[in-house]
């Protein structure tokens, strides 16, 4: 039975023995002004993505006037200009935020699942299995992620967004699993693990209840960087024509459609890119602050 504390009314609540490591790290991060700004900016971009249908001034797919309304430079009616099909670029960038962020987050969830599982198994099992698993990982790590994705995506001709998310996720866990494996390896003979073993805890319980909670901070840092990475990768893949298929709008996609005529359609490259840089930069700032907070512990 956990310790209980009673307030004056006699209500009891479980006593908080210590704050969670993650909660502590987040509080420390938010003490820095730069990370508060980053947090705010990221929040705004997230909101823009979530509320896209309410904010976007036009339908992102509508082609109102393909003759006289196409390729217009930025104006009051179209702050980011219009594209080759007379679609409003601002609305497409807003919807692009939605798609790019969603792909980033979902793919990262896939990566985390695989990375943590693989790393934990390798680190906990040790021995020959660990060696083999790590060599395979070395090979995957030595194929640049973009090349691996090109290989996969070119081989599968028509894939859905779901498959794209899956591929992005499945190529993003190698680095994380190495971190997890190292930590598990370092902690598996720690006294609290031995104590848990002595009390008869199963392997699974030790892994879930004793080892993984100690890995939350590096995992959160890796996840933050992972989302940033996926956003840039997705844009790059869309740029070379094997990412998000048109007419859907993602940031990379919009840039791709204007890239061949960048001299005349510069607004199609500049604005989506600015949004992307802003998002990635805030994520980088937060990841850095988080890992600093973790290191200071």
């Amino acid at each position, binding site marked *: 039975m956990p310790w209980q504390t009673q307030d004056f009314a006699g209500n009891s609540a479980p006593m908080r023995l210590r704050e969670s490591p993650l909660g502590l790290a987040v509080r420390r991060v938010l003490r820095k002004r730069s990370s508060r700004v980053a947090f705010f900016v990221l929040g705004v971009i997230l909101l823009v993505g979530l509320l896209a249908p309410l904010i976007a001034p036009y339908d992102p797919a509508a082609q109102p006037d393909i003759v006289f309304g196409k390729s217009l430079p930025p104006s009051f009616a179209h702050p980011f200009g219009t594209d080759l099909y007379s679609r409003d670029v601002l609305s497409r960038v807003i919807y692009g935020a939605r798609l790019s962020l969603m792909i980033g987050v979902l793919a990262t969830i896939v990566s985390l699942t695989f990375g943590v599982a693989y790393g934990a198994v390798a680190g906990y099992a040790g021995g020959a299995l660990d060696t083999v698993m790590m060599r395979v990982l070395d090979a995957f790590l*030595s194929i*640049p992620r973009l*090349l691996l994705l090109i290989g996969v995506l070119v*081989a599968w001709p028509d894939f859905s967004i779901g498959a794209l998310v899956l591929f992005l996720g499945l190529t993003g866990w190698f680095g994380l699993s190495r971190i997890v494996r190292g930590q598990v390896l370092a902690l598996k003979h720690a006294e609290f693990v031995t104590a848990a073993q002595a009390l008869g805890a199963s392997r699974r319980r030790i892994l879930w209840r004793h080892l993984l909670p100690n890995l939350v901070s590096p995992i959160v840092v890796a996840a933050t960087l992972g989302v940033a990475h996926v956003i840039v990768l997705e844009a790059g893949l869309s*740029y070379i024509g094997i990412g998000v298929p048109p007419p859907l709008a993602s940031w990379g996609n919009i840039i791709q459609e204007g*890239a061949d005529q960048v001299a005349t359609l510069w607004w199609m490259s500049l604005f989506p890119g600015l949004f992307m840089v802003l998002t990635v930069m805030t994520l980088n700032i937060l990841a850095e602050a988080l890992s600093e907070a973790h290191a200071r512990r």
Partner: protein
Amino acid sequence: MFRYIAQRLAQAAVIVAIVAAITFALIHLAPGDPFSATMENPNVSEAVRQTLRAQYGFDRPLPEQFVKYVNALAHGELGWSFSHERSVREVLATALPNTLLLMVVALVGSFALGIVIALVQVGRRGSATDHALSGVSLLFISMPDFWLALLTLLTFAYWLPLFPVGGAYDVMSEYWGFGHRVLDRLWHLALPALTLTALASAAVARYQRAALLDVLPADYIRTARLKGLTERQILRRHALRNALLPIITMIGLSFPALLTGTFFVEKIFSWPGMGYAVVTAIGTRDYQLVMGGVIIGSIMVTFGSLLADLLYALADPRLRR
């Protein structure tokens, strides 16, 4: 020392073997084969496809195909490029020197620039200059390669037409003298190399700044300070030399990013290298050329990190036994 080199070489060989297995799996896990993907032309009859499959050995059992595949790879055979109507090996062999030139220039440029930026920052740590430069490097590492390349192209080739829009040399260059040709080459190299250098040097500067700050609390730095050396001498003679070791590891680590960068940069500046060939091949669905590029790129990265590790062993007297 020799044991270490031998071990590291064996490890690289194992990695290359696994890479071959992975690429083989990629090719064969995908639905269809190069012939159903590249030849969707209804005028090509099923019989022709079958013959092609038999010609290229795609009708054989998988293990046999794998042995053949590895054998072909070992002999440098990477298949046939439909769009160039040449062997993939020839296409990549003509493209590779251009890519290597771009990568070497960017590598040297970015490490030189990155180290200088880090020295300036650490020399004035905590100052406004330090913070500003940190901000700038953060901005650059957050930039997608292709976006910066597009903006560079837009700014320095269209708005300020100082540099050529693309290509590796002028169409007339054949008729020029040697000196003129070299200048022409550099003039075309400028923008792609500059883009890659800017992107890579930001990462180097951040890494090198941290490495320098790491060695500053060391005893020998305190000794140097007590000897009465100036801050400048301490930084350059004592701190930098020791903080340069991790930078060798960084060279190996930066290889994948640099290679990936050349893919976009070459495409945007029409620089006739491997990246340009592969990205164009994606558009034409020239599958074997794409896979050839993937394999060669991975092997380059493996050997890049091998080279960095060996350099490290040479440079670190503690490992030189």
